């Protein structure tokens, strides 16, 4: 194989960070629900997939990509609210296994419903015209659309951070995650807080699915692989820590990218090896609280 030039390594590093940003986007909704509700949402990948299909549908009836950017998260978020209210709420306080299993079953149902509605074969999803093509980033060419996805991820993170850290509702959410009983005693309707957190988490999942559609097309099974990746990012970063998820996402991206350079066939297993090592050395992940969900 050709020698490793500086440019190639720099480009590879950049590709890794860019991929990491996409992982962050995939994982952040899962991490939010995980951390705040201690619900392991196995249907996260299914919400992501439905997000892509809703986008596909909206475009087919005359919408465009920009409308979808707003409409898809709202629609998926509303769907998430309904799921929380009807299916998840009866399970609070029953241990972590039950929501996990319920959402597992739910993902089967969602995937199959999409297969019935849209067929088993995938669909192409064209990159919006203004974002097509590759641009020179100094060390090589990189697709413009990927840069756009990174920007969108940054916007989502910033909005989420402002919401959680700077608003009074965010304060209640954080308090509710730490000690729901005290918050309840203080007269706050905790179940409403959880409802909204679940809605936000699923809305971000749908948004991520829409953004992923032009990268890889849409297919009912598209949620399966990202679920594993999102779990790794969430767990490595520490459950419930948004900062941890960002750091872990970028790290996973770089690990995948560097493995791709030296032993590409190991790219997929490398992220699991990373997770195993991090958890064995530091069981709560980078920024997780020790003992959570024991």
């Amino acid at each position, binding site marked *: *194989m*050709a020698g490793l*030039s500086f*440019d*190639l390594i720099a*480009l*590879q590093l950049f*590709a*890794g960070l*860019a*991929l990491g940003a*996409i992982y962050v986007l995939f994982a952040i909704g899962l991490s939010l629900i995980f951390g705040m509700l201690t619900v392991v949402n196995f249907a996260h990948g299914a919400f992501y997939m439905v997000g892509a299909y809703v986008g596909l549908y909206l475009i087919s009836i005359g919408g465009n990509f920009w409308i979808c950017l707003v409409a898809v998260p709202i629609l998926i978020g509303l769907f998430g609210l309904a799921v929380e209210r009807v299916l998840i709420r009866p399970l609070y306080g029953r241990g972590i296994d039950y929501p996990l299993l319920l959402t597992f079953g739910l993902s089967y149902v969602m995937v199959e419903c999409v*297969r019935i509605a849209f*067929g*088993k*074969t*995938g*669909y*192409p999803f*064209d*990159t919006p015209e203004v974002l*097509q*093509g*590759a641009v020179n980033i100094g060390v*090589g*060419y*990189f*697709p413009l*659309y*990927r840069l756009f996805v990174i920007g969108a991820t940054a916007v989502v993170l910033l909005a989420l951070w402002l919401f959680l850290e700077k608003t009074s509702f965010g304060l209640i959410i954080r308090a509710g995650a730490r000690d729901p009983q005290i918050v309840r005693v203080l007269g706050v309707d905790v179940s409403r807080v959880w409802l909204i957190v679940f809605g936000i988490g699923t809305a971000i999942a749908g948004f991520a699915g829409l953004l992923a559609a032009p*990268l*890889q*097309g849409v*297919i009912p*099974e*598209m949620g399966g*692989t*990202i679920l594993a990746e999102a779990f790794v990012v969430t767990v490595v970063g520490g459950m419930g820590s948004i900062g941890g998820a960002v750091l872990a996402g970028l790290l996973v991206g770089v690990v*995948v*990218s560097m493995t*791709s*350079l030296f032993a*590409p*066939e*190991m*790219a*997929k*297993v490398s992220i699991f090896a990373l997770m195993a090592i991090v958890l064995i050395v530091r069981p709560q992940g980078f920024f997780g609280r020790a003992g959570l969900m024991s």
Partner: protein
Amino acid sequence: MTNKVTKAGSISRRRLLTTASAGAVLAVSPFRINLVRAEEAPIKIGFPVPLTGPYGAEAQDQVRAGQLAVAQFNDAGGLNGRKAELVVRDDKLNPGEAATRTLELVEKEKVNFVVGSLSAAVQLAINNVTKERGVIFNSISQSDAINEAADFSKFTFHEALNPHMTSGAVGRYAFTKFGKKVAFLTADYAYGHEMVRGFLEVGKEFNIENLGDVRHPLGTTDFSTLLPRLQALKPDILCISNFGRDQQIALKQATDFGIKKSIQIIAPLLSHASRVAAGPQAFEGVVGGCSFYWGIEDKFASTKAFNDAFRKMYDGKLPTDYGALGYGGVRTVLEAVKSAGSVETDKVVAALEALKYDYYKGPQYYRKCDHQSVQSVLVIKSKSKDMKNESDVFEVLSTEEPNEKNLRSCEALGHKA
């Protein structure tokens, strides 16, 4: 247009399911009475294909075409009046499930033959079960391993192309046209490795320069960390050896990275369903191989007849590559039954070995040593404009005529000459 096709699809699916469930009800019914004499029981062909999973659409087409072959056999009077029946099972694209289902087909359904599969691992699993029990299996998906002495048995037939033939034909075409510097992007499993081995072997004749082979894990959804590297190698040809969703995403992202501007992308196998799923943009200009394309009906009367029969049975729909294999796999077995005048395994094996046939894509026959169907390989290019109908997705660039020289030799496969 789209609506009509979907409707047609659902009708035939319903028909298929009714047949399958009726068969199942009949099979489990304790009231089944064997009034008919033993020799008048239908000739049963087990048909395990992945109806659920990512290749569900291809599998459904395989079933449709298999049903067509059975219907034609029955309409022509069957075997002296004895009718045939297709027993469809879902292997879920999982070798373990396929082995279980094959055991069901052989032990419970007592099928006379098995035809099917849509993955290398699944066909090898089915083959292992059938060969131990002396049941003929005609595989209709690609694999090099199934021809090799370790997996082969006299009950094993392979109607589909194998990676060696496919990559050989595409290589012979591409290496003369597009340049000698070749880089590879390969799915890290037997199918991918076999394709690359085939390309490199034929590459020797053309003195190609191998710039490197980047192997990606099966089921990769993001190629952004692999493509810059391949681009930096500055090849004339990038050869992408993967299948299904991996191929769709790789081609889509290669397009996004601007690779097609300076590099010709070739793929050993382009599937009809993949091209439809990924769209014209991702596949634009990509050259690859295939075993069947409906468009060769101008050239072969058999293709025309097959297309017309398929259209008639399925409301104007055209058969795909994998559909054609389902047809070929079932029809060869039934024709062999006719010429043997019996369903006895040894007689049918002999009849299959003696068969010289042209049922859907020009002349074919099974090679004696490994029962590989010697057949033509089409080299095709994806179309992005001037498409006449929704099935008009490829343009046939050249046809490699059937020739045993393009197969791996019997000795190389471990067979005694």
